[in-house]
C-alpha cells in the first residue's frame, strides 16, 4: 500500500471529522466502508460491542459444526451470502445513534442468533449434505416445512417438532443480505421459460427449485396461496422438485368478510390434521395457547412502537423496524426470547422519547407504501442520512394487528386464522383495494406525514393495477408523492442508484430541498453486496 494511502486511512481513523460526508468512507463501486462509522464515543463503542457480539454468534455457529457448514457453503450458492452478514448489519445501522441504534442492534443480533439456530436445524437434517445418514433421517421425521409466508404459529402446537419456513433461509434472507444473490436463480427460471415480468420473489423460489438448491429436509410441506398470484404458481414448480407430501393451506383473500372465516378455520384444522398424520404427533393445545398469548404480548409491544413513532421523536424507523416485524410475525411469533427482546427494545425507545432526545436530523416525515425493496434494505437509512426524510410509517410494517382470543380452542383457531389472513404484504394487498388505498390516507394523517414515498414495484401486478388510484388520491389530498421504481429483489432491472435518482429528482424539484449530506446524493454501489 502506498504511503499516502496509509496516511489517508490513518487520518480518517484518527480524525473522522475531516470527512465531509458519509460517502467519503465508501469504496468506489462497492460502497463498502473503508472504516467503521464514527457516531460519537458512546454510540461508536456500543455499536462496536454489538458488532463483536454478532461475530461471537457467527463463530459459535461455525465452531459447532465446521465441516457441515463448509460443505453447505460449497453445496449452496446462496450460503455465500451469509458470509457478508456483518456488512449487512452495518448497512442497516448506517447513520443511527441513540435508541434507534440500540434497537436495531438488539433486533438484528437476536435475528442472527435465531437464524443460526435455524441453520443448524436445517443443515443437520439436510439429506443433500448427509446422504444416507440415519441421524438426518430421524431428524427429518419431526421437521415440518411450511411456506415462508405462513406464520410459524401453527408449529407451536407441535412442540416436539421443528418448523422450518422453507424459503426463508435459501431465498428471503439472502435477497436482503446480498443484492446479487437472486440474480442467478431468477436467470435459471427465465432460462426455463418463465416470463421476466413475474415478481422476482416467486421467480427466485422457482429458480432454487430448478437448481435443486433447496435443502432436502422435512417430512411434509404446508404450502399456501400467500401472498399473491405469483406465489400460488411457483408452488407448482417447487412441489414437483421438492417431492414432499404437501397440503395447501388456502387462506381467504377477502379477509375482512365474516363469512369467509369459517372456511379459514376449516383450512387451519385441515392443516393441523395433515401435520399430525405426517409427524405422528398430536396437536398440543396448551402449547399453542401459550404461544398465542406470547404473540399477543409481542404484538402489544409492536403497538407501543407504532405509538412512539407518532411522536415528534420517532425512535424506531427503517428496516430495523419493518424487517424485524416481518421476521417476528412470520418466524418468531410465540417465542419467549423474542418477547424478551421486544421488552428490552421498547424500554430503550420509551426512555429516549421520555427524555425528548432526537439524535437525528428529521426534515420530513414520510409514509412509505407498497412492498419495500429487498435488494436495498438500507434505503431508509439513506433517505434519512441524505435528505432528512424519516420513514415514520411503512405499509410493510403494519400487518397482523389483531390480538388472538385464547379463551377457547375455537377462538384461538379463529384468531390464528385471522392472523394468517393479515400476514406480511397480504393485509393490504388483499381484502379489496380499499385496504391498500384508504389505509394509506388514514395512516398518512395518523402519523402526521408531509410526504409519501410510493414504491412502484414494477412486477407487482395487484398493486400496479390500482396505481392510478394512488396518483389521483394523492393529488386530491394535496399530498406530495414520490414514486420510486424498484423490482423487489432483482437489481438487474432497477438498481439502488436508480432508486436514489428517483428520490433525488423529487426532493430537488418538488420539495425544493437541499441534501443533509451532499456526498450521499449520488454514489456507485452496484457491485456492493
Amino acid at each position, binding site marked *: 500500500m502506498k504511503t499516502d494511502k496509509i496516511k489517508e486511512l490513518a487520518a480518517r481513523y484518527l480524525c473522522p471529522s475531516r470527512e465531509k460526508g458519509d460517502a467519503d468512507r465508501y469504496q468506489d463501486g462497492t460502497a463498502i466502508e473503508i472504516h467503521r462509522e464514527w457516531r460519537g464515543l458512546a454510540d461508536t463503542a456500543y455499536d462496536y460491542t454489538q458488532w463483536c457480539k454478532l461475530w461471537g454468534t457467527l463463530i459459535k455457529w461455525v465452531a459447532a459444526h465446521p465441516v457441515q457448514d463448509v460443505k453447505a457453503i460449497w453445496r449452496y450458492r446462496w450460503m455465500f451470502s451469509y458470509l457478508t452478514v456483518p456488512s449487512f448489519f452495518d448497512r442497516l445501522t448506517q447513520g443511527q445513534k441513540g435508541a434507534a441504534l440500540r434497537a436495531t442492534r438488539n433486533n438484528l443480533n437476536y435475528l442472527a442468533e435465531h437464524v443460526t439456530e435455524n441453520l443448524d436445524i436445517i443443515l443437520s437434517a439436510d439429506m443433500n449434505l448427509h446422504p444416507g445418514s440415519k441421524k438426518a433421517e430421524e431428524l427429518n421425521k419431526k421437521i415440518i416445512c411450511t411456506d415462508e409466508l405462513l406464520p410459524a404459529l401453527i408449529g407451536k402446537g407441535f412442540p416436539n417438532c421443528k418448523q422450518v419456513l422453507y424459503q426463508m433461509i435459501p431465498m428471503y434472507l439472502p435477497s436482503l443480505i446480498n443484492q446479487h444473490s437472486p440474480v442467478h436463480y431468477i436467470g435459471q427460471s427465465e432460462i426455463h421459460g418463465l416470463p421476466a415480468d413475474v415478481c422476482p420473489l416467486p421467480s427466485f423460489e422457482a429458480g432454487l427449485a430448478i437448481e435443486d438448491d433447496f435443502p432436502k429436509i422435512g417430512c411434509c410441506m404446508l404450502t399456501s396461496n400467500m401472498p399473491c398470484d405469483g406465489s400460488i404458481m411457483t408452488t407448482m414448480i417447487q412441489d414437483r422438485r421438492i417431492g414432499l407430501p404437501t397440503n*395447501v393451506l388456502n387462506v*381467504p383473500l377477502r379477509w375482512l368478510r365474516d363469512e369467509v372465516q369459517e372456511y379459514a378455520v376449516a383450512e387451519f384444522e385441515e392443516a393441523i390434521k395433515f401435520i399430525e398424520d405426517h409427524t405422528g404427533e398430536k396437536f398440543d393445545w396448551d402449547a399453542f395457547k401459550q404461544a398465542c398469548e406470547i404473540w399477543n404480548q409481542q404484538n402489544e409491544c409492536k403497538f407501543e412502537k407504532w405509538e412512539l413513532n407518532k411522536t415528534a421523536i420517532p425512535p424506531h424507523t427503517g428496516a430495523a423496524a419493518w424487517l424485524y416485524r416481518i421476521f417476528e410475525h412470520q418466524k418468531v411469533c410465540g417465542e419467549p426470547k423474542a418477547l424478551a427482546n421486544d421488552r428490552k427494545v421498547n424500554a430503550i425507545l420509551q426512555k429516549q422519547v421520555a427524555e425528548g432526545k432526537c439524535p437525528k436530523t428529521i426534515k420530513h416525515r414520510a409514509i412509505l407504501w407498497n412492498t419495500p425493496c429487498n435488494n436495498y434494505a438500507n434505503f431508509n437509512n439513506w433517505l434519512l442520512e441524505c435528505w432528512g426524510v424519516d420513514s415514520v410509517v411503512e405499509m410493510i410494517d403494519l400487518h397482523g394487528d389483531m390480538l388472538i382470543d385464547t379463551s377457547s380452542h375455537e377462538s384461538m383457531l379463529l384468531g390464528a386464522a385471522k392472523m394468517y389472513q393479515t400476514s406480511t404484504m397480504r393485509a393490504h394487498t388483499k381484502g379489496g383495494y380499499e385496504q391498500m388505498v384508504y389505509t394509506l390516507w388514514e395512516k398518512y394523517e395518523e402519523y402526521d406525514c408531509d410526504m409519501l414515498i410510493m414504491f412502484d414495484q414494477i412486477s407487482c401486478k395487484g398493486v400496479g393495477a390500482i396505481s392510478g388510484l394512488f396518483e389521483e388520491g394523492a393529488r386530491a389530498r394535496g399530498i406530495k408523492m414520490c414514486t420510486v421504481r424498484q423490482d423487489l429483489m432483482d437489481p438487474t432491472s432497477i438498481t439502488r442508484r436508480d432508486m436514489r435518482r428517483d428520490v433525488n429528482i423529487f426532493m430537488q424539484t418538488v420539495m425544493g430541498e437541499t441534501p443533509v449530506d451532499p456526498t450521499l446524493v449520488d454514489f456507485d454501489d452496484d457491485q456492493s453486496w
Partner: protein
Amino acid sequence: MKDLKHIRYYEDLLELADNELVRKAKEEGGVAVGYTCYYIPEALLNTGRAFTVRLRAPNTGSLDISQYYMSSFICGYSRALFERAFEGGYNFMDFYASSDTCQQMVRVVENLHELDISDNPNFTYGIIDSPLKISEHGIKLYIEQVKKEYIKPLSEKFGVDFSEDSVRKAIAEHNEMCAVFEEISEIRKEDNPRITPREFHILCMVSYCCPTGLILPYLKETLEDLRNREADAVSPWRKRVVVVGSEIDDYAFDEILENCRCYVAADRYCFGAFPGRQQIVLNDEEPAIDQVCRYYLKSCQCPRFMSQEKVQERRDYLKKLVDDYKADGIIYEQAKFCDFWGYERTLNTQVMQEEYGVPTLGIDREYVVRGSGQLSTRVQAFMESLEIKTIQKGGH
C-alpha cells in the same frame, strides 16, 4: 367449403360488447350481467330476467388511459376491459359478477367502482372469494359466496327470480346450447373436419357474449347447416393441435393458425369450449344452485388451483383432449403479464412433452394478436417440427 350459415351475422355481433342481441334483451327487460371468468357460474346467472355477457373489448386500440390507471405491466385483457369501460362501452351492464381469483381482473371492477365510471344508474357488482382447491368446506364457501355476492343483489335489486324452477329452466336452456356444441365438437374429430377453427371460435364466443335464449335458435340453424355441409375434397390441414391457455377472444388468433394450416381440434382456454360447453346434469334431490356451483368449481381447469391433484388433473385433462381429438401437439399460449399461465406454460410445455410424449409449443401473446408475424412464424415452425416427427416415424 361454403360459408357457414349466420357466420357473417355472428362476426357482426362480435364487433361490439353491447351487440344487437344484448340490446334486444335489455329492451325486453333483461338484466345484463357482465363477467370474465370460469369461476363465475355462467349458467346460473342466466336465470330469470338475467342474462350473461362475457366481457370483451373488440377492436381495442390505444390503452393509454388504462396504462395510467393500471400501469403497463398488467395483462392486455384487463387493461382493454378497463379502457372500454372508461370509454362507456359497458354502460349497458347492470351487474358485474367478478371474482377475486386473478388479481389483475378483480382490480378492473375495483377501479370501475372507485372511479364511478359506469353511467348506468343501476350498476352494481359482486366479488366472490373462491378456494384454490376442492374440498367440502371449499365448495360450501363457494356456494355461499355465489349466493351472497351474486344471487342476493340480483334478486333483491333487480328482481331476478332464482327459484328452483327458474334455475332448473335456465340450466335446461344452457344444456340445450351445450348439446349443440357437443355435436359440433364431434365434427372436429373428423379427419377432414367440416368446421374451421375460426368458425368454431366465433360460434363459441357468440354463445358466451349473447343472451342464451336469443342466440340459441341461430346456433341450432348453424348446426343443421353443419350436418349437411361437405368438406373440401382434400384436407387443407397439416397438423392438429389442442390450444390451451389464457383467455382468447380475438378470432384472429385462429386465422393465424389457419394460415399455417394448423387445425385447432380442441380449445382449452377461457372463452373456449373446454370446459364450459358441456351439459350440466342435475339430480332431483339437491337444490339446483348448489349443484351448479359444485359443477363449476370442480370442472374448473384454471391454473390457480394449486393442490397437487388438481395440477395433475389439468395435465390428464389435456392429454385426454389430445387423444379424443386426435391432436398431434399442444400449443400453450399465455397472455403477456398473466402470472398464472406464465408459470403453467413454463412447466407444462416441458411436462407434456417429456412425460406425456406430446409435442408442445409454448408462446406468449398480446391481447390483440391480429397481424402478429412472430406468432405466425412460431406456429409455422411448430407445424414443420410436427411434420418432421411424422417423417422420422416413417409416416408422411
